């Protein structure tokens, strides 16, 4: 059946896809943002201000912290939330500013690949960190 259109050549947009992806990513940005305020400010305080600040940070300091599951969980959640929060923010920036569909596609592919690499590498280090590793 053909539709009777009063303006057959006027632009039309495709039907809604009934996906909640944009809503969930919007909600994620709000929730992760609030969590990151605590996680990142706490991290900066511990690393830069408490005791001697940056001067006491060395291998032993990191090893000592990561011996506790609490700090492992803190750093892991900070890694995942910050990476996905920032990645999603960049995704919307790319959506806004890319002029061509092919540019948009390749920029997003670069973004997603870098996100996966950083998340995988970071999680791998946190989970498999060995405090007794030899210097050589």
């Amino acid at each position, binding site marked *: 059946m053909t539709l009777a259109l009063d303006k057959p050549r*006027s632009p039309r947009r495709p039907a*809604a896809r009934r996906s909640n*992806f*944009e*809503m969930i990513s919007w909600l994620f940005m709000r929730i992760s943002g609030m969590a990151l305020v605590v996680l990142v400010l706490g991290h900066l305080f511990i690393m830069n201000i408490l005791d001697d600040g940056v001067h006491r940070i060395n291998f032993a300091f990191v090893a000592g912290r990561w011996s506790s599951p609490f700090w492992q969980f803190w750093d892991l959640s900070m890694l995942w939330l910050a990476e996905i929060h920032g990645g999603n923010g960049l995704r919307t920036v790319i*959506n806004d500013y890319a*002029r061509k569909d092919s540019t948009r596609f390749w920029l997003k592919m670069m973004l997603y690949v870098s996100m996966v690499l950083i998340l995988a590498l970071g999680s791998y280090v946190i989970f498999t960190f060995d405090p007794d590793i030899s210097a050589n």
Partner: protein
Amino acid sequence: MTAATVAESAGARGDQPPVPEGAVTITVKILRFNPEIDSEPRWETFGVPALPTDRVLNLLHYIKWYFDGTLTFRRSCAHGICGSDAMQINGVNRLACKVLVKDLMAAKGKQTTITVAPIKGLPVHKDLLVDMEPFMEAFKAVKPFLITYGNEPTRERIQSAADRERFDDTTKCILCACCTTSCPVFWNEGSYFGPAAIVNAHRFIFDSRDEGAQERLDILNDAEGVWRCRTTFNCTDACPRGIQVTKAIQEVKRALLFRR
């Protein structure tokens, strides 16, 4: 320009009328574009005698009638009701018929310059005349009409004053496109619905007589829907009817978050 050439161009009204007492000469800088000659838009400046009580639309009329009849812009009612003459005046989207010259006057003794450009984000046909079709397409896509199912009532559809109040603000929209073309998300190449379409969806989503809210919410839940809003409030600032546009968009977001 001589009287003869003025008479030749369309819309011209012959010789200039006598300048009224108390008039000052205003520099009007217009971003013009003639698709038959120009490859790029260009600024053109006119010196127009104006009273402080004149509207910017009067200045444009003066230019069209006495200086250059080829100046092209939309206007219909000239009283802020039809929404035809939305343009960027001194960098902000306004209706030319609602902005008074006295509100744009420079400090005493300084020359007043008023810049007028077409609204942004829509293809320019000529001078201040833009193609409204992408804007209207977004408007039509949200189904801006009453949707009901089941048998029609034998009497009118009754609504309480409180139910009417719920969407009162968004009934004021005149589709001038001031809000949508002030939105930085709309300026990009995508097809974001834009504030005006969301305002008109809001008008029906929150109407107690309407039964199509879920359909409209589905449409606005899409990739180009309300979630692209960055809450910059440009739309609220631009609206000549004073609609709380960003608030309406937020209410649609909230309805999506908490539906069912």
